[in-house]
């Protein structure tokens, strides 16, 4: 018994050390981002290069905001995220509910269709859509994000199906006896019980639309474009030389909302992912 315990303790220490090393390696690119964002441009090219900046250049963070109209793109990103995330979460929850509760003959086949949409490369649908809509002069429409949301997220539909399946049928039956309609049963009884699923779905939807590059670049003019597009194009001076330091400061701003949401909700998020994935 004691040998097993000692061995277990040794193994735990070894794993701990390995993980600390991995975390250090994982942090390097992030440290690089922060350090670069605080250097002057000429300091970046100085030989021999120093690891940390001589003096932190906080102005980079101001310039990241003013050099492009950051506020405008931020608002655009927020609008599109809401426009996408609300229907995406609702449509996925509805679909997950349908598949878990109302199994009819064609449910199985339709569920396979949901899963098989994972295999469709994004460009195979987005490029023709762009060509047809551009020709029909139907461009620069934010409404597209709403329709995109309706098409749901296959993984999240799967997740919601799992979560709804764990709720006993008796919950709804008693409500139905009392004469509650479909939607009242869904919103007042079922929906509050899948909060974890809701958190996972919202984080996913937020992350997806916040990161989406192809759609805004194809469908929206600069006036309605998003942060993802601006960040991809990066910051440059008049001669089109890329400004690494200010670009990194911009990326800090850009990723901050995701970082905050992730760290605030990570316990329930990870728990939800683990619970949903179990019966894979």
């Amino acid at each position, binding site marked *: 018994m004691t040998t097993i315990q000692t061995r277990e303790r040794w193994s*735990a220490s070894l*794993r*701990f050390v390995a*993980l600390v090393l991995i*975390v250090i390696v*994982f942090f*390097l690119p992030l440290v*690089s*981002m922060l350090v*670069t964002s605080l250097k002057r441009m000429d300091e*970046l*090219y100085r030989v021999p*290069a120093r*690891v940390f900046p001589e003096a932190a250049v906080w102005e980079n963070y101001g310039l990241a905001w003013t050099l492009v109209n950051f506020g405008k793109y931020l608002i655009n990103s927020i609008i599109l995220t809401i426009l996408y995330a609300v*229907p995406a979460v609702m449509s996925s929850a*509805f*679909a997950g509910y*349908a598949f878990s*509760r109302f199994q009819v003959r064609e*449910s199985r086949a339709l569920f396979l269709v949901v899963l098989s949409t*994972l*295999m*469709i*490369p994004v*460009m*195979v*649908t987005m*490029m*023709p*859509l762009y*060509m047809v809509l551009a020709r029909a002069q139907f461009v620069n429409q934010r409404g597209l994000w709403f*329709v*995109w949301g*309706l*098409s*749901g997220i296959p993984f999240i*539909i799967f997740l919601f199906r799992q979560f709804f399946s764990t709720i006993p049928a008796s919950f709804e039956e008693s409500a139905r006896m009392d004469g509650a309609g479909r939607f009242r049963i869904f919103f007042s009884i079922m929906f509050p019980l899948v909060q974890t699923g809701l958190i996972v779905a919202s984080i996913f939807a937020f*992350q997806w639309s916040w*990161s989406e*590059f*192809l759609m805004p*670049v194809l469908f929206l003019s600069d006036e309605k474009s998003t942060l993802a597009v601006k*960040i*991809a*194009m*990066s910051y440059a001076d008049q001669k*089109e030389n*890329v400004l*690494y330091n200010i670009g*990194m400061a911009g990326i800090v701003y850009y*990723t901050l909302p*995701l970082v905050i949401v992730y*760290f605030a909700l*990570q316990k329930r998020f*990870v728990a939800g*992912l*683990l619970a949903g*994935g*179990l019966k*894979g």
Partner: protein
Amino acid sequence: MEGIRRIGASPLERHKRTSFYIFLAPWLIGFVLLEVVPIIWGFQISLTNRTSFPVAIKYVGLKNYLTLFQDADILGSYWVSFVYTILNTLIGVVTGFIFALLLDRQLPGRGFFRTILYFPYMIPLVAVGWIFRIFLERDTGFLNIVLVNLHIIPSGIPYMQQSPMGSILMLSFWQAGWSMIIFLGALSTVPRELYEVATIDGAGYGRRVRHIMLPLISPFIFFQLVMSFIYAMQAFIQPYILNPRPIRGNWVMLNPPPAETFFVMSRAYYIITSQHKFAYGLAMLWVLFAVVLVLTILFVKFGGFWVYTEAEERK
């Protein structure tokens, strides 16, 4: 109508079917408008000579597809995507599995490690691309600065120039958190008693992993392989940003990446948006779509033979 009445004979069944379609309706609308219809449009356009100027469009049959297979650049892109997909899948799945193994059992700071290792997966790809570009740059890159200051290397290494593919593959390692989460879920389904029994029988760690853990989580490994394959085939923006040539501001997306990393999606984007060959680009996308479809079906149908299932055991 006839069919519906026959199937849904009982009122209960009919009520069920109505409910099913009411709740599925939003998804169905989105699916038809954003997937089915554009896919059909895309195939139709790929059979024409359409460019960005919609004049004198005519049907050319499979001509675009036939030209595609004689175009050395495009065949090169398929090859490059194929190589990247294999390497990316291997790196992602193996890294995720090792992380999950390290985190599976009790450990101080387990939650912290899990949070940190998953974290890079949350960062948008465009940001990750730029973070790595600046991390790997020869003169100004943080990695070289640290290594030179620690006297590990005498002078900066031009990582992106030496191996554009290698530098893009670093992202697969950094973003392995997703695969780690799937494997952590998988490992938690393996009953602890099985390990204990095996340990008492004298099986070492390697044998427990090989004979108990791997067979039991094989469905998850399989799922990971399929998903990772599909996603890697779609890689598109990474080679534009992690371009070994100097990048100039607004022209990031106009600079074609080097041949070594000019993935199918990146080239299709370039052909459509920069060269304005709409139909040709779509034909290229359709070939990839067909390949993904066929490979996934083959994979799911015949690749599953090594996946352990309870049902097989009972036979």
